[in-house]
């Protein structure tokens, strides 16, 4: 097994600031925008971006939620293990809002497909965008592309992208693992 550093802590910081600025360009005061981190690991990225937007770019208030897609996945009973759910926290209306889905890695696109179904249980958004830290292009099963991407990676199928976050894993780092 080989493990290559794809993004260092410093590179992640730079990318987070760039992504925050791109969001700011398109959503200005975030009055009609809600950020939704996809459970489990998209929530760390969503919280980081919210902190940067409020503390460093002076956005007054951002509606930040987390969405669990377990019950909407299309691979129920197809894997070895029972799918375990995480918590969904959406205590605001998404009706007519601009929703930004935030996830750490975009791979096959199936999680995003599930999220698109799941969010409809909370209302009909005006539009939905996708932000992802790592975009594994060439591995999509569905016609889904991000609106905002941190880094595009041409990983082959046997390779795995692992994103670690300071608050959960003790450091910010992204690895490309070849098993």
């Amino acid at each position, binding site marked *: 097994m080989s493990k290559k550093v794809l993004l260092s802590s410093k590179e992640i910081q730079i990318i987070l600031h760039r992504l925050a600025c791109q969001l700011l360009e398109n959503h200005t005061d975030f009055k009609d925008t809600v950020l939704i981190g996809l459970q489990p690991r998209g929530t760390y990225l969503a919280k980081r971006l919210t902190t940067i937007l409020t503390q460093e770019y002076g956005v007054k208030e951002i509606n930040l939620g987390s969405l*669990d897609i*377990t*019950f*909407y996945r299309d691979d*129920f*009973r197809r894997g070895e*293990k*029972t*799918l*375990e*759910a995480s*918590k*969904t926290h959406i205590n605001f209306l998404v009706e007519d809002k601009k929703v930004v889905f935030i996830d750490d890695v975009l791979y096959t696109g199936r999680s995003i497909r599930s999220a698109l*179904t799941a969010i*409809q*249980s*909370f*209302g009909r958004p005006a539009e939905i965008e996708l932000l992802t830290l790592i975009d594994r292009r060439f591995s999509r099963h569905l016609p889904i592309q991000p609106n905002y991407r941190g880094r595009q990676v041409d990983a082959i199928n046997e390779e795995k992208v692992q994103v670690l976050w300071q608050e959960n894993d003790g450091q910010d780092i992204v690895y490309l693992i070849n098993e």
Partner: protein
Amino acid sequence: MSELSVNHLLGIKYLNKNDINLIFETADHFKEVINRSIKKVPSLRDITIANIFFENSTRTKLSFELAEKRLSADVINFSASQSSVKKGETLIDTVNNILSMKVDMVVMRHPNPGAGVFLSKHVKAAIVNAGDGAHEHPTQALLDSYSIREKLGDVGGKNVVIVGDILHSRVALSNILALKLQGANVKVCGPKTLIPKHIESLGVTVETDLRKALNWCDVANMLRVQNERMDISYFPSTREYTQQFGVNKALLQSLDKEIVIMHPGPINRGVEITSDVADSNQSIILDQVENGVAVRMAVLYLLASKIK
């Protein structure tokens, strides 16, 4: 920890504590789902479930059916009263005929104890016991414990008294097993004629003085007097039963603490509990009904995930 240790839910006695925790954690997520404006998830869209009720039921059947529909399963319903059972068909033949229609799970209520276990050995489908005679009613016990956990934070260490017709109650047996498994202290209280011999072997104590039992407990789970299961008279009159084992507002107020009142329904108002108790803030009867859907969704989801 992410998988049940069983392929069928036949009774609490087949579960372990991890199973119960997993069911409760999954039910927490489903409780959030059923409080959304759109209460349905597509998880079981490729599963067909048959609800086979050989005995009358309103709330359990409705609760299962709602749970199944909220998980997007296809549902067929079968009542023995309108079926070939009346013509002498055996249980296995009845169920095999239904399974030939490509049914994946069977939720069954049957008047005979052990009917679910028997069926699980003879047919290829996941079986959920929705009550087998006076034996077990596992999903009722799970939703009762879940409701206690929700109200009091934990089941372990709590004092729970089960009051009434213990002898004929499948709810009582399943509840005793579930509560003991989670570390609760359990008493049963009722007329001596309605308390089975050797019940202490399940780790419970017997109390025939309702006031003493209520003073001891954190939760009183009141059971319905099951007149339909009584072939002889077990107490002199309903009036006398109510005087000794019925809970009314005055009795509750005379206790030196506030206890939680539960009832699996249907309530004989004025017999086991009076209306003002059933409708009071201390009663969590309607929470039990709501939690029933979430807990049954969790059970069906976890069992369905084991069907390959």
